[in-house]
């Protein structure tokens, strides 16, 4: 079987939790040349849905990092015992359990954020990045490396999410992470209804709608591939 073949390769006499060049790349690759959103083009649906504001995006990113890392560890530990016929179901159950834990913890300790995110927490279950990493990495690697891979991909996802959210919240609502910066009344740092310099400014409502995330991500993909032509057509 493919799984057992690869695991024997990884088993060497290294220290228990090595952090060498290879391990470091597990974290850094998903942030750049192997980003789950811009290169693998996974997890797009949630990137469109939750990125209207920065704070929910940060919370979702932390939740995805947690779920991705620990589902990777659990599946990696079980990888030689999971019956092949029910492999996908087992992965899904592990993901769903961790997501439910996240949901309970938010509901108990951060109710406002829980209410704001509502259905999107549950939708982490369907985030393709998590299942994708379980299938592509955790089923064939040891728990430590799977853990790092989970953290790396979660971070790569979160970095894009937060970047998109900053753009959308600023241009759509004139605020960043709830700090009101530019808008038409005195609650904002720059009050456009009184300022002679910014009187022309109006927030662009288009940025609040999901299509905005679509083209912001598309532009990010474009920029990334313009600077790294070797990434073109690898996904």
């Amino acid at each position, binding site marked *: 079987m493919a799984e057992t073949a690869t695991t024997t390769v990884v088993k060497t006499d290294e220290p228990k939790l090595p952090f060498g060049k290879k391990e470091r790349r597990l974290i850094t690759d998903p942030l750049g040349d192997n980003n789950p959103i811009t290169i693998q083009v996974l997890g797009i649906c949630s990137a469109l849905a939750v990125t209207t504001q920065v704070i929910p995006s940060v919370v979702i990113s932390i939740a995805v990092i947690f779920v991705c890392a620990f589902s990777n560890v659990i599946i990696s530990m079980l990888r030689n015992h999971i*019956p092949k016929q029910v492999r996908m179901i087992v992965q899904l159950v592990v993901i769903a359990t961790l997501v*439910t834990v996240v949901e309970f913890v938010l509901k108990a300790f951060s*109710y406002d954020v829980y209410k704001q995110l509502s259905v999107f927490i549950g939708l982490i279950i369907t985030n393709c990045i998590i299942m994708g990493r379980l299938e592509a990495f955790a089923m064939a690697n040891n728990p430590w490396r799977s853990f790092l891979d989970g953290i790396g991909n979660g971070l790569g996802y979160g970095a894009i999410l937060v970047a998109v959210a900053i753009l959308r919240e600023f241009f759509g609502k004139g605020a960043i992470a709830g700090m009101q910066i530019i808008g038409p009344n005195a609650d904002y740092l720059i009050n456009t209804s009184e300022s002679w310099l910014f009187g022309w400014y109006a927030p662009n409502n288009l940025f609040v709608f999901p299509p905005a995330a679509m083209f912001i991500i598309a532009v990010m993909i474009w920029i990334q591939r313009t600077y790294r032509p070797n990434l073109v057509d690898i996904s």
Partner: protein
Amino acid sequence: MRNNSVIVFVLAMTLIVGTILTALFMWLSPRFKVNEILANKKAVLTSVESYLPNKVKDLENEAVEEIFRSNVEQYVVDFEGDPVDQDIIINAGYPSGMAEEIDMAKEEKKAEEDKLFPVFVYQAENGDKVYVTSVRGNGLWDKIWGNVAIKDDFNTVAGVAFDHKGETPGLGAEIKDNPAFGAQFAGKQIFNAAGEYVSVNVQKGGAREAYAQYEVDGITGATITANGVRDMMYNGIQDYLPYFEKVQGESK
């Protein structure tokens, strides 16, 4: 034989996962309840925000509890406006027997005569008494709900606070996100000059001058949500009219 090991694996997994999640839920559910009640209290206070020194979102949780202890009386009434016995409230699944615990989503599904209606009477520092009602209805995508505060002439709206489950950000969600929408309701009257109950109308294209007493502007691009608010206001406040009449009758 192989199939057996699959079944054993799946059963063991289900058992372990089920146990973990149940235990976690049992451990955390008292906190869920506390959070829900606190969120409900904040929503009630948001509808009377104009009487408060601070905005509700700037209040600490303890401050919210303090206002509720010192300035808010809560009652549960039935569809005829009569107070409901403590036992009935507890049997309906609200162990505290208090209005703050009442879940409108649950009440909505009951028959009219079994419904429980929470009333929060806010005693303002300036001597005004405000009656806060809870209303619930349908938006475009999902449920919308809110609290409507009525002054003690039982005609003038003191303030509203709306919330929703899944209205579109920038359109229907404006009923919550845009403070200017809710602010329009303050000062409107729910009875017309002839004394008929009209509630507050949310008018597409803007409130008409002739009806300015009980009409507010709709939201461009969110007519269905706005109509949902109109219907919710009409039906929701109507349920409280018998209670209002009884309170008025007593004070005369």
